[in-house]
């Protein structure tokens, strides 16, 4: 019975997402794409934060890796976005592997500070390597040429067409993260969050599992970055800035880091709130910060966690990792 309603719910959401692509105006479609891209970024990120219990301040670097990887391919090699995305995602993955290698041997504040330091280094590299990255101008003029698969070619030039491509990537991400969270690997990650010392005594290398979680989250950040660059037609150096690393953290916190859907719900709240507040006031950051404060402090466990708690007040103890809400 509960299963049935879950399927109905998923079908409704999917129908809603598809009809946005079919019927909504350009601005709504654009905004929805920003939500979807931020969701991809945050879903991957939360595998590290909520699941493994590691707080990284450096994931903007991998987002930028995806954006610049795609941009460089698009400008210098081929405008086929598929190759650009593959290279962008691959670059982010390699960056995460290298940076993660040095970071995962430390925990808590040391880990967080190291990721911040590496993130800053990537930002200043992008800023200073003018010949390659365009410096403060970024890479401009990225075109959305059709995705050619050899046997078929999918046009994504029009905003609404590109929307469906982003939606496809979003669904793929949701599915992959869902599977990972339910897998043996996902259980080991919750074990690391709960008690990393004891994981060693299960015969597992904490370092390797942490690194794997780091690389997976960095890779999804790269996918988000590549899609974002295609959306905005440029790769922006500030996408590598540490302040951008805060976005997946905030979004996960808003939605609930111990939930599966939290990062997605958080992304919706984040983008919409910001858009609305920016209409009314110049110093949107102040009001935005205030509202975030209220959500995060008021709803321990985030929006999804809070709502879920209302629904099952009676059942007293529910395991953190148990469900895929």
């Amino acid at each position, binding site marked *: 019975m509960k299963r049935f309603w879950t399927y109905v719910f998923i079908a409704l959401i999917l129908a809603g997402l598809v009809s946005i692509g079919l019927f909504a105006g350009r601005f709504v479609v654009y905004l929805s794409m920003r939500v979807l891209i931020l969701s991809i970024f945050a879903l991957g990120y939360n595998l590290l934060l909520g699941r493994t219990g590691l707080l990284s301040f450096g994931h903007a670097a991998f987002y930028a890796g995806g954006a610049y990887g795609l941009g460089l391919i698009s400008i210098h090699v081929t405008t086929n976005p598929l190759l650009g995305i593959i290279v962008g995602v691959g670059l982010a993955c390699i960056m995460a592997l290298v940076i993660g290698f040095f970071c995962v041997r430390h925990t808590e504040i040391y880990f967080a500070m190291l990721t911040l330091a590496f993130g800053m280094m990537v930002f200043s590299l992008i800023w200073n390597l003018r010949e390659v990255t365009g410096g403060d101008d970024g890479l401009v003029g990225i075109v959305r040429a059709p995705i050619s698969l050899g046997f078929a070619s999918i046009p994504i030039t029009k905003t609404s067409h590109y929307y469906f491509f982003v939606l496809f990537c979003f669904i793929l991400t949701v599915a992959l993260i869902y599977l*990972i969270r339910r897998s*043996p*690997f996902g259980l*080991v990650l*919750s074990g690391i969050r709960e008690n990393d010392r*004891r994981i060693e*005594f299960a*015969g*597992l290398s904490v370092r390797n599992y942490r690194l794997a979680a780091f690389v997976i989250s960095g890779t999804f950040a790269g996918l988000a970055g590549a899609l974002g660059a295609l959306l905005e037609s440029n790769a922006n150096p500030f996408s590598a800035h540490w302040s951008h690393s805060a976005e997946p953290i905030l979004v996960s916190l808003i939605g609930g880091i111990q939930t599966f859907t939290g990062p997605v719900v958080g992304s919706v709240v984040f983008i919409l709130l910001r858009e609305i507040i920016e209409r009314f006031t110049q110093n949107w950051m102040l009001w935005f910060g205030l509202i975030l404060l209220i959500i995060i402090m008021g709803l321990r466990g985030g929006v999804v966690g809070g709502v879920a708690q209302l629904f099952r007040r009676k059942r007293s103890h529910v*395991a953190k990792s148990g469900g895929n809400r």
Partner: protein
Amino acid sequence: MNAPLLEIKRLSKAFGRVIAASNIDLTIDPGVLTSIIGPNGAGKSTLINMLSGSLPVDSGRILFQGADITHLPIHHRVRMGLCRSFQVVNIFPDLTVFDNIQIPVLAVHKRARRLFRPVAREAGVREEVSQVLDRVGLAAEAQTVASALSHGDQRLLEVGIALAVRPRLLFLDEPTAGMNPVERVRVLENIRGLSEEGKTTFVIVEHDMDIVFSLSDRVVVLHHGVIIGDGTTEDIQKSARVREVYLGEEVMT
């Protein structure tokens, strides 16, 4: 004649001026249930910490089944078959009891790296988890969150997690501390049973002398980081040195 399971050669450890282990030589043979006793602060936990890899040694060597493991990381030792439980409860508090046991069982079955297959579909693993839960008497609590267990049950889980890696040599650091008599008997029966099966060799740190003398094949007495007694339960009960250390404790009579 079996080769020794574990050989410790001139093992030393000091914390500042406190000497917790001083040139300890010890050999543990397979199937011999050994107890390590000694007054508080004798260095029992420190010895286990060094053998299991939680603490680096100052000097000396540790050989496990002939291989030098002195500087191996913890998880390598566990994979070779050397594991431990902790004096202070050290579980995965927010996971269910089932998942607490499942993590080590996944590791033993080499399934822990699977990324996309639901863990619920690992039938062999689930079965073994249930067996371990039955064994430690927590089958009814399988879906309870570990932190919601009573202290005694958490201790049972603590031992269960250690057993779940199917160790050849298992150190139990005060496995019955804080248990009620019923749980205590259960754990001890388990240890005896498993020891007789012969797959796992147990080394137990225990304060309760009744338990020590009824359970052990061999007793090792530590005092200030030095072994002052080593032999059968009768040898130890007769030893003058040991009596001296435990002077006044009625248990030794």
